[in-house]
């Protein structure tokens, strides 16, 4: 007996009702696809912000406990010149490493001569940073090159956050005085040239951020070493394995180090992702329940209308389990059709959004990014499966009672 053919004919038989059900499934799938696609885009942009704009690379290496206690007693976690050279040498030899660049982080008071405010600076090696900016994040490499002059002689050039710039009334080309301490706690200061004013992309630090030259920071801090090394990889998909391999190699070479990935270090990525993932899950549950109830209603109506027919085919020789099977196939077919119809709609919406180039400011970011639907099989396939399961469950629930009913009772049903 070809139950699929039988199920398809029964779906066609109640065309309007089936279409409404399929439309509901399609709508639910499209809604989740859109939300999931936009979230994928937000996550991808936040990832890009963390890796490139926050300059965290794929992972960061430091001395053990630096990430927990480094801010209290930073000089204790500094590598000296020799250590830094040794570690960088090992990293740069690794075929998996794209970039390994030293970093220093300083903070203090920034002044325009009349007023002052706190600043934090990430000290970067300009030539490395130009390379970091071109890091491939989810297929994107083309982005605005906000960095510092490559010329070592111009190590007093800095780029500052746009809010810091407006708070101190400074613009590109102005001077700024940075007051900080050396590693031994002695006050030290430098006059720097503002080479660039830019939005850091992170509202939490846009009013205090100074991107400074690593060699200037070394002078200010009175060190030849660094506190961290940021690493980017040629194949970030394989990050966990490569990271473990590199860490093992460094530790075996006598360098006691530990590492943190960009998502562990980013102030916002993890929290935002968790929050949106929870929202997405709640929406998925709500929409799945709506789909399940719609299908349950449809199947319940079909079962009620076809009670005599069910009695007839039971009398002819169809087993109880096959009655349930028949309705389950009908439910799954409607579920699959609804999802399949939704797929081209999703791709069309994705195409339209890409063409229109509509932008928005993602949460905890301060720069506009395009609204795009990033449709990943990893998000679509589970929703597809979930809807099929919901279709199956609703059909099962609707048909199991009628399948158990006595044949004579089903046959005596008056429609």
């Amino acid at each position: 007996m070809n139950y699929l053919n039988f199920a398809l004919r029964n779906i066609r038989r109640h065309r309007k009702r089936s279409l409404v059900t399929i439309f509901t499934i399609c709508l639910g799938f499209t809604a989740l696809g859109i939300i999931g696609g936009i979230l994928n885009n937000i996550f991808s942009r936040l990832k890009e912000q963390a890796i490139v704009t926050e300059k965290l690379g794929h992972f960061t290496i430091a001395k053990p406990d630096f990430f927990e206690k480094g801010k209290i007693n930073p000089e204790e976690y500094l590598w000296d010149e020799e250590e830094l050279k040794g570690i960088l040498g090992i990293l740069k030899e690794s075929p998996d490493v794209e970039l390994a660049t030293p970093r220093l982080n300083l903070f203090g008071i920034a002044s325009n001569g009349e007023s002052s405010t706190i600043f934090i600076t990430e000290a970067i090696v300009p030539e490395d940073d130009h390379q970091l900016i071109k890091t491939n994040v989810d297929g994107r490499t083309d982005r605005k090159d906000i960095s510092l002059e490559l010329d070592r002689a111009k190590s007093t050039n800095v780029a500052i956050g746009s809010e810091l710039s407006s708070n101190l009334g400074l613009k590109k080309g102005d001077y700024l005085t940075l007051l900080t301490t050396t590693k031994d706690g002695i006050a030290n200061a430098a006059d720097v040239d503002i080479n660039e004013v830019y939005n850091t992309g992170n509202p939490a630090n846009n009013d205090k951020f100074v991107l400074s030259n690593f060699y200037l920071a070394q002078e200010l801090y009175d060190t030849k070493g660094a506190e961290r090394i940021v690493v980017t990889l040629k194949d970030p998909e394989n990050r966990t394995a490569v990271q473990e391999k590199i860490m093992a190699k460094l530790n075996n070479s006598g360098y006691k180090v530990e590492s943190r990935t960009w998502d562990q270090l980013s102030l916002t990525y993890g929290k935002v992702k968790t929050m949106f993932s929870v929202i997405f899950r709640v929406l998925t549950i709500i929409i799945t329940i709506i789909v399940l109830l719609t299908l349950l209603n449809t199947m319940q109506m079909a079962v009620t209308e076809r009670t005599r027919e069910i009695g007839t085919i039971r009398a002819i020789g169809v087993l109880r389990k096959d009655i349930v099977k028949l309705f389950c196939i009908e439910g799954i077919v409607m579920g699959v059709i609804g999802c399949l119809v939704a797929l081209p709609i999703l791709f069309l919406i994705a195409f339209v959004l890409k063409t229109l180039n509509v932008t928005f400011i993602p949460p905890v970011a301060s720069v506009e990014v395009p609204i795009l639907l990033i449709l990943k099989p990893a998000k679509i396939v589970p929703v597809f499966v979930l809807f099929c399961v919901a279709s199956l469950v609703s059909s099962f629930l609707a048909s199991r009672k009628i399948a158990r009913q006595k044949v004579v009772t089903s046959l005596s049903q008056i429609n």
Partner: protein
Amino acid sequence: MIEKKTLLTLSGVSKTYFLGSQKVKALNKVDLEISSGDFLAIAGPSGSGKSTMLNLISLIDTPTHGEIKYAGVNVKDLTDNEITIFRNQKIGIVFQNYNLIPVLSAIENVAFPLQLQKKSKKESMKLAGEILTEVGLGEHLNHRPSNLSGGQKQRVAIARALITDPEIIIADEPTSALDSKTGMEIINLMKHLNETKKTTFIFSSHDPKVIDNVQSVITLQDGEIISA
């Protein structure tokens, strides 16, 4: 004279229903023996227990008391799945309102019971076509039930009951939804099949014209056999 084999026995069969809180005794300690090749009509007024008796013989209902045996096998000992398979293989049922499956064509309706026996579609359809031709519907094989007349639908229903070559065909008021001429055609068709294929037929009717044309008649009244 060929000695007939006992096909079915009903021993002390009773059936009680509840209509709300009211207890209705539809059949009361009925004993009956049906032999293979019988062409038997069950007569009686409405509410006499004809349909209940046929439902029990069709194994689509179970007795409150008593035993039903098919070729010595007590139906009580069979599971629901075994009874369903038994119905498919040994019993053909013709319903008062035809009960054809609306989404299937005439030939597909007839082939349906055979396909449940895992017969190939080709084989089932071929046999269904032959039987439909035999009952005079060779021209209507691919018509949906909605495009057939009452008499044609009942012929399809008979063909569906016949296709598995069952030991017994049970028909509950097969002519009640038909005009008297078509009704007689259906009875004559059943008679013809009984004589040519030796298929056992049991059917109910309250139409005197139909009953007058049948030799073996059981009359029921208030759930009891009053004449056989």
